């Protein structure tokens, strides 16, 4: 995609999320930077997401992880919404195992519950995923045509054995 297009959309995305800044500030909550470890995780690996939250103690903090594939331009519907634990004063953390084999990036957004109201973090984190160690990514799992062909070959093989046995009788 052209750079101009990307910049335009970045402005829009920032504006969508930026609209939530004020509401979060009004509650007294201040969201820090979202950090993800490792910095460039692989698809289907387990990652640790952390965020400092100051200005209050939310009753619950959750992180939402969307997995997308930048090559095909698709975001997958299985969005993980995981509860974060308070690991030290003002610091929340969650471990999440990524689901999709062919995701190329993830988008993390965080929300905190304060006085019964959910306040989304104004910032979100996009993390590019590294290639899998086998360099292949998803080959479709059991959806590949190859899997079907194997079944057919096995069925034909069994049938031929049955035919041969009957003929021998």
């Amino acid at each position, binding site marked *: *995609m052209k750079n101009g*297009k990307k910049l*335009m*959309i970045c*402005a*829009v*995305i*920032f*504006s*969508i999320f930026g*609209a939530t800044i004020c509401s979060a500030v009004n509650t007294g909550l201040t969201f820090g930077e979202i950090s993800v470890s490792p910095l460039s995780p692989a698809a289907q690996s387990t990652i640790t997401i952390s965020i400092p939250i100051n200005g209050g103690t939310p009753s619950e903090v959750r992180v*939402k992880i*969307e997995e*997308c*594939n*930048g090559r*095909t*331009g*698709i*975001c*997958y*519907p299985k*969005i993980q*919404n995981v509860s974060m634990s308070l690991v030290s004063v003002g610091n929340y953390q969650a471990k999440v195992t990524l689901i999709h084999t062919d995701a190329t990036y993830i*988008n993390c*957004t965080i929300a905190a519950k304060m006085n019964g109201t959910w306040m989304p973090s104004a910032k979100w984190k*996009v993390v590019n995923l590294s290639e899998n160690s086998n360099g292949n990514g998803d080959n479709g799992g*059991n*959806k590949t*045509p190859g*899997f*079907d062909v194997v*079944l*057919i070959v096995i*069925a*034909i093989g069994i*049938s*031929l054995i*049955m*035919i041969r046995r*009957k*003929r021998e009788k």
Partner: protein
Amino acid sequence: MTISGIKKKPVLILVFLFFFLTVFAGCTEQKSNTGEDFVFKSLDGEAKHLSDFYGKVIVLDCMAVNCQPCMYQMLELKKISENYSKNDVIILSVDVWVSSGETASMLQDMIDAFKNQINLTLDWTFGLDGLNGTIQKTYASTGVPTLYIFDKKGNIYYSHVGYEPYTDLAVKIDEVIIKN
């Protein structure tokens, strides 16, 4: 009974097995292609049916606010909106991640952001799936954006999962307009 020395029954079993596996193998990847009607909620809260728009070519964009490719897709849909008469082609963008927490106000914020940030008016029909995610399950189970082009009778003419540039969509729209 034999056919050239081969018994008929095993051969029939073999043929049956072959066709059975050919037909049913890979069923997990198949998805609805019926063009079935659905109800969505417009931004003003009104319940609308896909069938309300039959009689025109419908471009259905199953999208989500928290989906970057969907934002890029808006630019391509805008070109369709500009280049085709609304008497011929209707665009419906339906947020199908309502069951994941997306709301009408988030969708409205997105439309406003396009208008305020890059002066782009998304001048077509927007709506939301229900909380049970019926549209998502039927039309966008793989992910978003998922695009469909329906002919004037409401049959699915074309579908594509993932971002699709205007040029590719326009080819399919032209085809379906001519076909009708």
